[in-house]
């Protein structure tokens, strides 16, 4: 597969997943506000902090982090490279450049999602029923993933799509969990109170994890919630699950035996995955949840860089070095 094509498929998938997760960020806050007692102030600024775009936001909106401004910045602002509309536009541009590789059904779905979003933007600039809107974005993404799984051969291209999606998802689940640090930083007197429980439940819901959590642990316990979203090996949005499956795809692409590595991407991802295999939630919390997550995001970025260097970077050709195709070539001369 062409390096450029692999790169575009990887990013197509990452960007669509990103759009979905931004919708999740906003949705968790909308839920919290509806569930909160009156005296709790609406907090919107932390949403921008967790996406890492606070400086960019302040340049454009000052320190006026109102609900409308934040929602606009994260949803329809084309100047913000991490808004839903930018992510979907990028997903679609990448898809357009590999239309001959992905299935027509995938292309049509990504195209429809994009035009749906443009339609929603066009009406008034204000969303009348934001919950429906963000739920719809999530469903469009699920549909795209389903169509991808059922219409595209599970070969190299599909594994690059899955790799991109899972790395993006692991990163965003870690950020969703980090919301608790920024927004829900518990006041001592609130720990274990009904408000605290509501907030943790909202967090689980934003990762579509509430029902699955209930089945496993029943009672809402902050420690267990963190464990579920980080370390569970069966729940498809937990960080551990994402990395396990990402590693599986990486090894399918290269053909390297599991548990070994032949390039930096495999080494870095393998090590990060092992850390989570043997992690313990009590140790993580006693060392500081936010610090742990922050550190995790840095390491995950390094995995992304290594994937780029290994598969996508256009290295100059060295005379006489054509990797595995060299033999074939020499045979013809």
């Amino acid at each position, binding site marked *: *597969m*062409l*390096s*450029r094509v*692999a790169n575009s498929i990887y990013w197509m998938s990452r960007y669509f997943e990103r759009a979905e997760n931004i919708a999740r960020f906003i949705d968790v806050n909308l839920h919290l506000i509806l569930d909160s007692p009156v005296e709790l102030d609406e907090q919107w600024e932390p949403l921008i902090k967790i996406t890492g775009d606070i400086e960019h936001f302040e340049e454009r909106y000052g320190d006026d982090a109102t609900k409308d401004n934040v929602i606009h910045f994260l949803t329809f602002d*084309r100047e913000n490279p991490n808004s839903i509309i930018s992510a979907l536009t990028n997903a679609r*541009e990448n898809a*357009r*450049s590999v*239309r*001959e*590789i992905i299935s*027509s059904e995938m*292309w*049509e779905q990504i*195209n*429809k999602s994009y035009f749906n979003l443009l339609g929603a933007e066009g009406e008034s600039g204000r969303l009348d029923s934001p919950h429906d809107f963000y739920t719809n974005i999530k469903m469009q993404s699920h549909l795209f993933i389903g169509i991808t799984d059922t219409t595209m051969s599970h070969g*190299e291209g599909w594994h690059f799509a899955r790799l991109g999606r899972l790395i993006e998802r692991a990163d965003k689940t870690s950020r969703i969990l980090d919301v608790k640090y920024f927004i829900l930083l518990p006041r001592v007197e609130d720990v274990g109170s009904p408000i605290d429980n509501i907030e943790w439940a909202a967090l689980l819901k934003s990762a579509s994890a509430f029902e699955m959590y209930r089945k496993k642990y029943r009672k809402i316990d902050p420690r267990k919630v963190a464990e579920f979203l980080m370390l569970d090996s069966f729940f498809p949005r937990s960080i551990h699950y994402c990395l396990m499956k990402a590693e599986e795809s990486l090894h399918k*692409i290269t053909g390297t035996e599991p548990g070994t590595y032949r390039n930096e991407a495999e080494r870095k991802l393998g090590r990060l995955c092992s850390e989570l295999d043997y992690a313990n939630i009590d140790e993580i919390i006693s060392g500081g949840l936010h610090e742990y997550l922050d550190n995790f995001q840095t390491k995950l970025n390094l995995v992304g860089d290594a994937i780029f260097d290994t*598969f*996508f970077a*256009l290295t100059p*050709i060295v*005379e*006489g070095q*054509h*990797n*595995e*195709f060299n033999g*074939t*070539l020499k045979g*013809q001369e």
Partner: protein
Amino acid sequence: MDFNDYDTEGYYDELFEAQARPRPGTSILIDRLESLPSGDILRRQKAAEAALFNMGVTFTVYSDETGIEKIFPFDIVPRIVEPGDWKQIEDGLKQRIYALNLFIDDVYHDQKIIKDGIIPEEILYSGKCFQEQCRGINPPKGIWCHITGTDLVRDKDGKFYVLEDNLRTPSGVSYVLENRQVLKRTFPLVFEASKVRPVDDYPERLLSTLQHLTPDNTSQPTVALLTPGIYNSAYFEHSFLAQQMGIELVEGSDLVVSDGYVFMRTTKGFQKVDVIYRRIDDTFLDPTAFNPDSLLGVPGIIDVYKAGRVALANAPGTGIADDKVIYAYVPKIIKYYTGEDAILPNVPTYVCWDEKEKEHVLGNLDKYVVKAANESGGYGMLVGPHAGPKEREEFAEKIKANPRNYIAQPTVSLSRVPVIVDDHFEGRHVDLRPYVLYGEDIYVMPGGLTRVALRKGSLVVNSSQGGGSKDTWVLETVPGN
């Protein structure tokens, strides 16, 4: 909706012999259209447009910062070509492409046609399309023009004429294939009853044409389509054809020349490429051989091509045969190489390079369409009868300054086809671009792109200037025969 008030206004109409009298091959279609409630036709038109939009058969109009995507306007009433007319088109195009290929090969080798005084030497070298770098090249199997789109028009007298040849990188065939998909859904019953010749095997035939060029000793050739990238206006077509053929779609930066071969960069290293269907112009192909500023092409690819280690379709240099001045000589070219008269005539053409013809053109600018020799897409044109005196004067200066670059033709009253306008049908002018493949033999796709001038009275069918398209049905037999 019915055709009772449909007026052919004295033009040749592709569907009607005369008012309310459909041609033999079109009566099934006309009966069906008239039997549908009018709301139904409009509903089908809308459904067809929506299908094209969802399939992403669009081009982007950049009016402000954000591009607006539009479908290439499309009218669901098909244009029908009867078997007898098609036979003449098919024979004529085969003859024409065969002769043009011999011509291109000759001008890059012995130039017998010049030595024998059929074409003035000066015309060959004064145009922009003769590529000095291609002299002496022997392309695989002796074929230069693998893919051609020839524009035909039908005049008042019902005869077909060749308007121009496109031998560089003709586009539009993807619309033909997609339009057909949509029309099969739109009028399944008429389609079935009309015995329409299929076009869907075009990608398969194109692939065979390309594989036929494979350099020797390669049993599993890698074929790739080279595109300028997603911002090119024909990008949809590049991607569509690569997908339909199951070949790699590459950009210049994906390819690299090393050890005398062309390779593409893959996730597993460098892989040799054997045949390239290039959809970028000659001068952008190789910055070391042509335009040094081009970032689109592949440095060194022409040397690999000359050494016969990669095939390029169309071969670099074919553009010499679609220079509009050379076009004027095509009937003589056909006669010279085949000994036959041209089956499809040219539109009568004056070459301003010739002093006498130039004077005639300058004296009659209000009667002629004047075209620049090397432009396409309807640019660099003067439509004399519609132009003002000032415009004609300015154009006269251009002709005097560079007579080699201009030809003139009388305006042809292009034939017409009904299109849906609000709640009724009106006639609009059309041309026809069939596609010709030259591989093991010469194949003419039965159909082609019918372009429609959607603006009332307009003769300009280019998509950049208000044109649209229609499906073209070539009938196997005329019903009842």
